């Protein structure tokens, strides 16, 4: 009965990732897409907040959006998993609902 949360904006520009992480339940998944993927970068101001949540819920980043912004899986906070669009669909199907933090 868990939720897939999507976040599509940079946490440096908008509050949506923070707000999302403040509202997840244990067992939920958070998928960073579009500009949201930059929030998953190791060593950034936001890395701590993300790492703290990773475990209670699973954090994913969309690979095509990482690549577009010149980022690789190895650039990410430990434990963040990279998925493609097919993986996005699987996550949406596995969880009971999708909540977009627009």
């Amino acid at each position: 009965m868990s939720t897939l949360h999507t976040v599509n904006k940079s946490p440096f520009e908008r509050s949506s990732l923070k707000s999302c992480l403040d509202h997840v339940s244990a067992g939920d998944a958070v998928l960073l897409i579009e500009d949201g993927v930059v929030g998953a970068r190791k060593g950034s101001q936001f890395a701590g907040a993300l790492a703290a949540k990773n475990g209670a819920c699973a954090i994913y980043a969309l690979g095509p959006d990482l690549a577009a912004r010149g980022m690789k899986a190895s650039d990410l906070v430990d434990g963040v998993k990279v998925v493609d669009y097919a993986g996005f669909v699987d996550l949406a199907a596995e969880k009971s609902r999708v909540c977009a933090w627009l």
Partner: protein
Amino acid sequence: MRFAIVVNEGPYTHQASDTAYQFARAVLAKGHEIFRVFFYHDGVNNGTRYTVPPQDDRNLQKLWSELAESHKLDLVVCIAAAQRRGILDANEAKRQGKDGDNIAPGFRISGLGQLIEAGIEADRLVVFGD
């Protein structure tokens, strides 16, 4: 599984339409069904056939129209949002006394009830926006 997709932003300005399109393709590739794609807010601007994007860029309207044709997708443009933003089909143009229309092939204009119905009928509703 049966998906509904909502697109809240127009093409190019925001990535929402691109992501929704790639997501829709992946849904179909996995053998799932798409009950409806609903275009709301500026999303209605995906449905104008007047766009002429640069030759070296993707044509989002065409991509949606082609996907609709090849997979018999139901692409619905919200009528209230469309009126505010100047998206018309032949019927609407006549009704509003406008001298032309710009709706693209494969898109149809209908009411917000179609969005609620999509929420009811689909197993998952996924929103793409700003």
